């Protein structure tokens, strides 16, 4: 009985957390799409700055990581493909698993580490130093002021970063292809492109869009619900990272399942 009560409480907590995320996302969307018609223009400048920080400045580290991931994928699939003498399928194996799964996922993980945590820390620090309260007493909606630009930046930048990540992964795979599987650079790239259907890339991009929404909502919600004190900012930041990773994988599972059954027909 006690066990059932605890499970029930945990489920209710989880659902109410998801509800808060959706509410925050909804308020940000309202500020982005309806607000301008009510005379409250979106803070475009701030969105561009956020896009610079979350997107463009993530490129070097994201490139390096996805290049390695592509190379690893090639090595791992070659291990199995070699037994069937099908080493020339390395290109398509890498291209498909990058675009459908690992490109969006690795991008999301890198962005969680760089930006999701930064959102929680930034907003959490503002909460602790009463800056959020100051915004409210100045009749400035903190969601409109702080959260909406982050949402705009993230849902635009994550798909862009994902496309970049896919390309870097294929490039990483091609290194193996050229050195070990008798490909030339041109032939490897052509083989990759032939293996990919538009569907593979688009499903990955839809997922990355949803990841952007998830990461921003969690980072900002954790920041806004920070209690008093510097220690709480650290806790919010940690929670933002852990919860984001979990939810991104959950969203991934849901959408992959969805695409699997939709694709069957």
């Amino acid at each position, binding site marked *: 009985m006690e066990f059932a009560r605890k499970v029930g409480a945990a489920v209710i907590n989880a659902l109410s957390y998801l509800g808060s995320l959706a509410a925050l996302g909804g308020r940000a969307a309202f500020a982005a799409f309806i607000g301008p018609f009510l005379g409250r223009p979106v803070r475009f400048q701030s969105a561009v700055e956020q896009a610079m920080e979350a997107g463009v400045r993530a490129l070097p580290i994201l490139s390096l990581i996805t290049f390695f991931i592509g190379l690893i994928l090639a090595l791992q699939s070659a291990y199995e493909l070699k037994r069937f003498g099908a080493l020339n399928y390395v290109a398509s194996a890498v291209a498909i698993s990058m675009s459908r799964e690992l490109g969006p996922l690795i991008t999301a993980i890198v962005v969680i580490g760089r930006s999701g945590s930064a959102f929680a820390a930034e907003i959490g620090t*503002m909460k602790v130093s009463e*800056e959020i*309260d*100051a915004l409210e007493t*100045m*009749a*400035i909606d903190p969601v409109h002021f702080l959260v909406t630009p982050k949402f705009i930046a993230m849902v635009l930048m994550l798909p862009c970063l994902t496309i970049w990540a896919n390309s870097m992964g294929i490039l990483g795979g091609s290194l193996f292809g050229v050195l070990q599987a008798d490909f030339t650079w041109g032939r490897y790239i052509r083989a990759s492109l032939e293996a990919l259907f538009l569907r593979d890339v688009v499903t990955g991009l839809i997922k990355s869009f949803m990841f952007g929404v998830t990461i921003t909502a969690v980072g900002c919600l954790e920041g806004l619900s920070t209690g008093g004190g510097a220690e709480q900012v650290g806790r919010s930041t940690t929670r933002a990272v852990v919860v984001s990773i979990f939810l991104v994988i959950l969203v991934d599972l849901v959408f992959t399942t969805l695409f699997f059954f939709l694709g069957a027909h």
Partner: protein
Amino acid sequence: MISLRDVRVSYSGREILHGTTFDVQRGETLVILGGSGSGKSTLLRTLVGLEKPTSGEVWIAGKNFSAISGAERDAIRKKIGMSFQGGALFGSMTVGENVALPLREHTKLEASTIDIMVRLKLDQVGLSGYEQYMPSQLSGGMKKRAAVARALAMDPEILFFDEPSAGLDPIIAAGIDQLILDLKQAFRMTIIVVTHELASAFLIADRMVLINKGDVVAMGTAKEMQNSTHPRVRQFMDRVPEPAVAQELDYLQMLTEQQPR
């Protein structure tokens, strides 16, 4: 101008304010006095709408603050200015941008006009020439002054101060007191100050309210407070520490948390 009717506020089940009632007249400077944990900061946060009362009414400028739409609340908030204890300046903006923010968000003034207003407000608080500084480059007293400049940006009718002289040396604190007095004389603003600094309270207050453990203990002019015979007021005015546990039995009870026989 401001009127509280039996306001009760709770944090996660614990009641902080147990039915507070008082009025503030237009142009008056009211000082809310109280020790740490007395509920005076909660009272201030309730006045500016950051805490929702669990019951009772807060009337500001003729509107019941807890029963109006978001748009109406924003309209009132544009007429009030709040200076937070630590300044609460936005760390990512310069001092000038901090002061300009409410003007940029709520008015359609030209950028050049806003620049002039920012200089004007900074000059009022004695910080002219500091527009381009970041808040982190300012001292504690300067941060508070900059926060006052930001609170003044929209020419508010009511100005709230949370612990204006906390953590400042006596000279800087006296400067802040003088600033409040100047504002009071120059603009006839309604000013509400939360503090536990007696000297500054007697200097600036028209009337005072003493809060203790969530209740209004006494209210009156500086003179009335000085001559009050209420034990709590006397204790606060005469800076008498909490009496030590007097009875041995009580002490024993406190230690063992058991009913003494």
